[in-house]
């Protein structure tokens, strides 16, 4: 398998909503385009509709009337999952316990009637790609969590799907393994270059893996953008607070400055409004001498994390402000410090 980009199909979902039989609205009608070869991450807290959207794309759920799912422009809405040619990795992995590792990986090919020899070659290729050599004849219950995850991915990819769908594939693993596999998964997805839709509630996964991230809240799309866009220019308070750490400050505006208890903070761009909700990322705030910054406050606490330290500063704003400072900065609780924030780092959120 070469590292060329742009395999698989493009996906369009049109006005796809989902109301379950008992009346709960899991997904408001949503329209979304996913380019060929793109990795799109659906990100949100549990119950936000991300899994429902994935299952509609997979063909495991039908959208409400009026909704449409198109692959490469072809209407697939009423095509069942077994004829959509999608590869799917489930949160529980759903590996067949009555088959060996290689039989699991080769199952889709067997169903398709691929001859034994060709199937064996393809299985060997995927075993090598996913780094599970030596496990081919194992039973599923003899595998570790990380190995199961790899087998599930190999099985989904073996059929050369048009679209790869992953439903929280790393959630079942412990934290250290999750971090390691995230990097590995990223490398694999880039190598495959196949259209991928990835569901997660973990923003670190979304940032690392996604070409674009769709942030969802209560069945609605809150924002779509690249990881950088989502992080630096969130369009709502929900997105700002869900992605990374954020200081949310409500304050009146005078002459292009936020008026705060601890001083005045310049904001970038035009702002002809009397008051605003602003977001400032903790790592964009520099801790300086009190005299050399227009904004100052008192250090409430310092938590040394190792690669950096997290300061909580009171008095600068009406709420506590969190600052991520380099580990070389000397600051103690009770000390007064100046907070230097570039005007560009202040993001006004729509109200």
């Amino acid at each position, binding site marked *: 398998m070469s590292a060329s980009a742009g395999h698989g199909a493009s996906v369009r979902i049109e006005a796809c909503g989902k109301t379950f039989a008992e009346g709960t609205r899991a997904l408001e009608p949503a329209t979304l385009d996913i380019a060929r070869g793109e990795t799109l991450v659906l990100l949100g807290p549990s119950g936000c509709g991300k899994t429902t959207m994935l299952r509609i794309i997979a063909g*495991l759920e039908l959208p409400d009337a009026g909704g449409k799912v198109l692959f490469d422009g072809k209407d697939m809405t009423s095509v069942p999952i*077994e*004829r959509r040619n999608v590869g799917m990795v489930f949160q529980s992995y759903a590996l067949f*316990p*009555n088959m060996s590792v290689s039989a699991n990986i080769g199952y889709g090919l067997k*169903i*398709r009637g691929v001859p034994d020899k060709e199937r064996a070659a393809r299985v060997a290729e995927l075993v090598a790609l996913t780094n599970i050599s030596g496990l081919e004849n194992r039973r599923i219950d003899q595998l570790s969590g990380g190995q199961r995850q790899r087998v599930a991915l190999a099985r989904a990819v073996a*059929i050369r799907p048009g679209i790869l*769908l992953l439903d929280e594939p790393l959630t079942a693993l412990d934290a250290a393994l999750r971090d390691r596999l995230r990097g590995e998964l990223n490398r694999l997805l880039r190598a495959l270059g196949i259209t991928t839709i990835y569901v997660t509630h973990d923003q670190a996964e979304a940032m690392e893996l996604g070409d674009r991230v769709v942030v969802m809240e209560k069945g609605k799309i809150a924002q779509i953008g690249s990881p950088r866009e989502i992080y630096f220019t969130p369009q709502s308070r929900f997105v700002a607070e869900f992605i990374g750490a954020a200081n949310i400050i409500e304050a009146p505006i005078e002459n292009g400055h936020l008026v705060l208890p601890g001083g005045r903070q310049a904001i970038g761009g035009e702002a002809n409004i009397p008051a605003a909700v602003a977001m400032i990322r903790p790592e964009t705030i520099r801790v300086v001498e009190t005299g050399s910054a227009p904004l100052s406050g008192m250090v409430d606490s310092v938590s040394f994390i190792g690669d950096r330290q997290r300061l909580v500063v009171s008095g600068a704003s009406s709420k506590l402000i969190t600052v991520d400072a380099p580990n070389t900065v000397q600051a103690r609780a009770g000390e007064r410090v100046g907070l230097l924030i570039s005007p560009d780092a202040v993001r006004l959120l729509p109200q």
Partner: protein
Amino acid sequence: MSHKSFVWLCLLPLVVVTAAFFLVPMARLVVTGAEGPQGITGYLAILTEPRYRATLINTVVLAAATTIVTLIVATIAGMFLQRHRFPGRAVLIAMLTFPLAFPGVVIGFLIILLAGRQGLIGDLTNRVFGEKLVFAYSIYGLFLGYLYFSIPRVILTIMAAVQKLDVGLEEAARSLGAGPWAVQRDVVLPALGPAFVASGAIAFATAMGAFGTAFTLATNIDVLPMLIYTEFTLAANFSISAALSVGLGVITWFILALARSFSGSAVAAAG
């Protein structure tokens, strides 16, 4: 009194009951089996004597057929009942499991009402074809009766197993291109394997040894429990009936053990 001897004292009633009502009669049965004119070789009569051998084969075939048909009917019904919600579902399940409460005699009576000389089926065929179809007093009637009381037991076991099935497995198979039949063949049935063996074993053992239904239907049906009864009460052939009893027990136990070891490897393969 030490703690240990206290525990042994507490176990005494169990030891007495086991000895009095299980070990002693069993030992007596085994001894009686060897006390006939042929001595210990009386035990081989179940295999060497043509009439006994034919009855043994009859019984095993009947029990096997009951087990297989029960499993097929109960699996389809159990899967449907577990996966669908519809009005009247609870009533239907209650009705299907109702025969659990019937003794074999009542089942036999039901079969006679259905397929006996004055039965419904005979009535119907008499009107349509001008000839009465009567099969209650034969091995077919017995088969129907065994089916009737095996199905509820198996349905309940299958329903519990279906409930525990991971729906994700079926979805995964479908995502890989498997149609409804392939999903059943490759995912659902293998996962239900242990439940098949467990409930099938009960159905088999019941059909091997049940007596009440057979006795109600007719005294000349060729199954082992009836043979034991006739040898014992009519021919007063104590040693042969004891040998046949032991044989029935051993053969049933052997077949169940076989199924269990087979399922053991199946369970191992199924993870």
